[in-house]
Structure formats: C-alpha cells, structure tokens
C-alpha cells in the first residue's frame, strides 16, 4: 500500500502532502517526477497543489501533456485512486479525468483562508470516514477555483451524486456568502463516474494536524487509507 505524490515544476504543496502521508497517516509514500512514466507501483496518486508550469496558458494546461499524466490517466482508467488538490484539481479537469473547469475567482482575488465544506456523499474512497452532512473546516488558497461546467454535466454530477464537497456555512447551510469564489452550486469537490478520482480546491494536507489549526482534512487521508486497505 503505497502513495505517490507527483511533482511538477512549480508544485509547492507536494512536501506537505508527503509529510501528511508519511508522518501523520504513517503510510509509505514516494515522490513521482513529472518527466517519468513510472508510477512505481503506487496504489494511490496525489496530484498536489501549487503552480505547475507557472500556471502558464491556463492553470493545469501544460501539466496535462507531461509524461507522468499519461500514466496517471491509464492508472485512473484502470480504477486507480487519484486525489487532486487545488492545482491538482485544475490539472485533472484540464486532463479530462474530471469534467468542467476551474476559472478565475469571481472577486478576482487570490483567496487564502479556512473555509467550511459540507460532505455531500460519503460513499467514496475519499470520504468514507465522514458522514453525509459533516462540515469540515479546511483552508483554501487559490486564484482560480471558480468551478464551471455546462448544464448537462451539472445535471449528470447531481444525478450520480458526484458532487462530494460544497462550500457551506459553519452550520452546513449552502449560501452565496459561504461561496468564496463563485463556484457553480458552491461546488468545492467532485469525483469521477467510477468514484476513484477526486478533485477538490480545499487543501486537506493543511488541516491534518492540530498544530496547524485543525485535523478535519485528515479525514480525507484516513478515508483513503481505509479504502486502500479494503481493496
């Protein structure tokens, strides 16, 4: 049972994710370089946050052409577990592993603060340690987190319960004020049809130790470890 954390030029949350998996979840973990096709037999892949390729062209647009993403696509197609965080979510959307796109925040500002997200579905490898309706406090830090997709994609996401996290008030209400970036339907995270690929804008690795102000984000890693053990 091994985790792999991708590194692109410009990734900057790779070490945080690595630390959380190694030091907090106590699981084997290795870094995977963007120029290599070799996923080193990892059982779960983390696409970390940051600014891959300087966010040139569009966020995540260049990363999708990297050799490692070719392997991640095959891995995901075969049911492999992939978690994309922030820039990782943007990369997964650009790569077509998740539908929709992350566009410029409505307020045009980089937003860096803890937010509340409501768990909409716990029947996934990433949320099985949560209950539906749980409100998790996890930080965001992004300029382009405004989730957009067309009406038919949104209908499909809803029908198949693939909206996993939505921005909410501390008591779990979905309101416009609780939406930090203008995302459609307050969407903070979605998963693939097979539920094995999750993208989320909040950073669970930044909320995995009490020293960092909270441990709600660790529920995602805890869920993943449980799902991997059960496979």
């Amino acid at each position, binding site marked *: 049972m091994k985790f792999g954390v991708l590194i692109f030029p410009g990734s900057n949350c790779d070490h945080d994710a690595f630390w959380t998996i190694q030091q907090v979840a106590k699981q084997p973990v290795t870094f995977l370089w963007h120029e290599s096709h070799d996923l080193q037999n990892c059982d779960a892949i983390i696409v970390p946050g940051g600014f891959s390729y300087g966010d040139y*062209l569009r966020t995540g647009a260049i990363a999708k052409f990297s050799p490692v993403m070719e392997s991640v696509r095959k891995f995901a197609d075969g049911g492999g577990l992939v978690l994309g965080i922030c820039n990782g979510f943007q990369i997964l959307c650009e790569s077509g592993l998740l*539908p929709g796109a992350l*566009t410029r925040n409505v307020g045009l500002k980089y937003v860096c603060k803890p937010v509340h997200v409501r768990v909409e579905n716990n029947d996934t490898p990433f949320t099985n340690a949560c209950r539906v309706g749980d409100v998790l406090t996890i930080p965001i830090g992004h300029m382009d987190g405004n989730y957009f*997709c067309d009406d038919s994609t949104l209908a499909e996401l809803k029908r198949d319960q693939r909206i996993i996290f939505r921005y909410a008030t501390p008591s779990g209400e979905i309101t416009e004020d609780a939406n930090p970036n203008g995302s459609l339907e307050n969407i903070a995270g979605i998963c693939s049809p097979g539920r094995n690929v999750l993208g989320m804008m909040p950073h669970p690795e930044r909320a995995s130790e009490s020293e960092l102000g909270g441990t709600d984000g660790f529920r995602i890693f805890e869920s993943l470890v449980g799902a991997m053990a059960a496979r």
Partner: protein
Amino acid sequence: MKAYVYVSLKKSVLDPQGKTIQGALKKMGVKGLADVRQGKFFELTLDGGLNRGEAEAEVARIARDVLTNPVIEEFRFSLEE
C-alpha cells in the same frame, strides 16, 4: 505565414475580469459602452512548409487541443501570408 489566434470565454461563462474593466471604464466616464469581454491573443509563425489548407488544419488543431479549454473557451483565427 502567420496565424493569429483569438481565444475568448464562451458567452455562457462569467468573465469577472471583463466586468471589472467595464466597471473601471464606467468610472472613467466612458460613454456608449455596453459590455467588455477579456480574451487571449496568440501569434504563431509558421515555417512555410505547409500550404494554406494544411496550415488551417494545423492551426485549428493547436487552438482546439492546446490554446483553449473547450469547456469554457472558444477560438477563431486568421492566416496571413
């Protein structure tokens, strides 16, 4: 031959940058302005190895597969000898 590619957000996608520019122009007292949409512009220089038809096909491929995200953006381009 040069190709000029214009990328813009689809009409259905909110353009907060365009809206902000529009707001600034309004404050400046600009008259007769109904809307502003911000986009991107790319200038490609082709090496001359392609005829016009081939160049059109290749530029369309570049614009479709790389320069735009079809979920949110659309493009048009022109070629100049």
